């Protein structure tokens, strides 16, 4: 290199020097970038292993026999795999009943949330009336309310209403607004739609309710899908609510049912507990892989403009 530079120097060709310099810089740059990329990739891989390893342990534990989970050295790939654990899960506890219960609540919640949140969001996004902005600030404010402080009074209110040990505490409140996050998300979405749509319909004599139902709701399908996905996830994963409001084991949802597999420290059949945990997790993972787009959209829409 040095020789060549001397050569060009002696040649006195300024342009050639410049070219050479830029080549050298970019070579150094390329090398650094290459190392940088390798480092990024290594860090990403390390992180990914930490994030994913628990899933592997979950699955391998769920396929061992009762004592197999306590064996050392551990068998990473259980031989033979005890697939019957997944049948046991449904025999030892009525897991199918928990699933049915949860699906019932989930369907009711989907209806309630999709209707209520889009209905409110239309009002916030497309109509002008005094007090609207204050109420919308309240919507945003309730998103920051630590909901857990309400658990004691809610319990008192629901027991006064005679709703304890029924599904009403999970279903009825969702008809009232459907959750601040969902209202917020759909309001943001409705605001992006052009006003001309509604104007044209108004000229044709449509009232606001039919504009909402016939024009805006069909256009909001992607945002509604996001809301639907998150609603299912919240309902499926809900643990605190059933813990407080349900007493009869036959009425439990999946999350509560799963905790029943936990005995004391030594009595727990970890293999069955893990099989039950896999059974509970598979539906949400499936949903995630099928609807990944809506997940990301929902998080971004509520997170970025908040």
């Amino acid at each position: 290199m040095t020789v060549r530079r001397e050569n060009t120097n002696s040649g006195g060709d300024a342009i050639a020097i410049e070219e050479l310099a830029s080549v050298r810089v970019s070579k150094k740059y390329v090398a650094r970038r290459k190392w940088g990329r390798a480092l990024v990739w290594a860090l990403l891989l390390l992180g990914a292993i930490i994030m994913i390893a628990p899933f592997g342990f979950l699955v391998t534990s769920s396929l061992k026999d009762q004592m197999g989970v306590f064996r050392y050295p551990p068998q990473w790939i259980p031989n033979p795999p005890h697939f019957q654990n997944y049948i046991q899960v449904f025999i030892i506890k009525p897991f199918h009943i928990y699933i049915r219960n949860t699906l019932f609540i989930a369907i009711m919640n989907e209806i309630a949330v999709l209707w209520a949140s889009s209905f409110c969001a239309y009002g916030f996004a497309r109509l002008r009336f005094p007090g609207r902005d204050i109420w919308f600030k309240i919507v945003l404010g309730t998103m920051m309310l630590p909901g857990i402080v309400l658990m004691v009074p809610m319990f008192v209110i629901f027991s006064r209403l005679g709703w304890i040990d029924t599904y009403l505490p999970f279903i009825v409140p969702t008809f009232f607004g459907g959750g601040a996050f969902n209202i917020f998300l759909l309001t943001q979405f409705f605001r992006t739609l052009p006003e001309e749509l509604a104007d044209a319909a108004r000229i044709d004599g449509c009232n606001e309710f039919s504009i909402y139902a016939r024009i805006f709701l069909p256009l909001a399908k992607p945002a509604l899908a996001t809301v639907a996905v998150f609603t299912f996830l919240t309902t499926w994963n809900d643990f605190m609510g059933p813990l407080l409001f349900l007493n009869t084991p036959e009425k439990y949802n999946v999350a509560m049912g799963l905790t029943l597999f936990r005995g004391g420290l030594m009595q727990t059949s970890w293999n069955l507990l893990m099989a039950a945990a896999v059974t509970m997790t598979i539906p949400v993972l499936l949903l995630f892989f099928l609807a990944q787009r809506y997940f990301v959209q929902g998080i971004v829409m509520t997170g970025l403009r908040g």
Partner: protein
Amino acid sequence: MTNATRQALVGYIFISPFILGFLLWQFIPMVTSAWMAFQDWNMISAPHFVFLDNFSTIFHDELFWQSLKVTAVYSLISVPIGLVLSFCAALLLNTKVSGIGIFRTFYYLPVVVPSVAGALLWAWMLNTEFGLVNLVLRSVGLPKVHWLIDPNLALLSLIMVSLWSSIGGAMVIFLAGLQGVDNMYYEAAEMDGAGYWAKLWYVTIPLVSPVIFFNLIMGIIGSFQVFSAGYLITGGGPNNATLFYVLHIYRVGFMYLKMGQASALAWVLFVIVMSLVALIFRYFSRSVYHEAKTA
């Protein structure tokens, strides 16, 4: 009816589900809870007014201070570490290396795992003899760690679990924020000779500061409400080392049926969280960059 009143009426019909819900399931419960905080009530006999007795009882309760300490430590450690890790993860995932899509999915995956399933899985992962974490330590010749049994480690273990399950959510928000940064800022910085770290410090971080702020607020609010990890993994133990504040409320209210005390505890929590949020808004919102809005 004038046009304006009709319009207002229609507007309020549309938002009425929210207004009713707010009154029924938020405002009335808050008022009820405030009333209950001044009553001695076990839900069986009639409540009677005790004024500030509930507050003086809870402030004289060692478990109150223990649960407050546990929650404060949890929040102080898990929120900043969570922010830094999710931001770093987002930076890494914002690069254009091969397989980036799969990496993003992997990092987000723990977020969708139901909290109960995640908690029970980690109770098993951190088992001293047979859990994966100690198996890995053992395979590289390190001594086993009593993750959930050692009172000095139990809280840290739960923080670890919470990081695993929550980093992905904040990360996706950061990622969207990073992708929203206009490339022209980077080009301008490069013209001024900024390297990677200078660009990160002077361009990226200021521009995504609203997102950092959002994640910080949500992280703090969430950290004070943590419950299922303590309830399911450690049961508040060992020796109350993981007695989270909400777990304390749950026990006082639903195990000892002291509804008045539980309400008083809930109000103390509410005041603490709201003051923290207000403080952060006051001192940090000014240092947050606001992009000029053109609309």
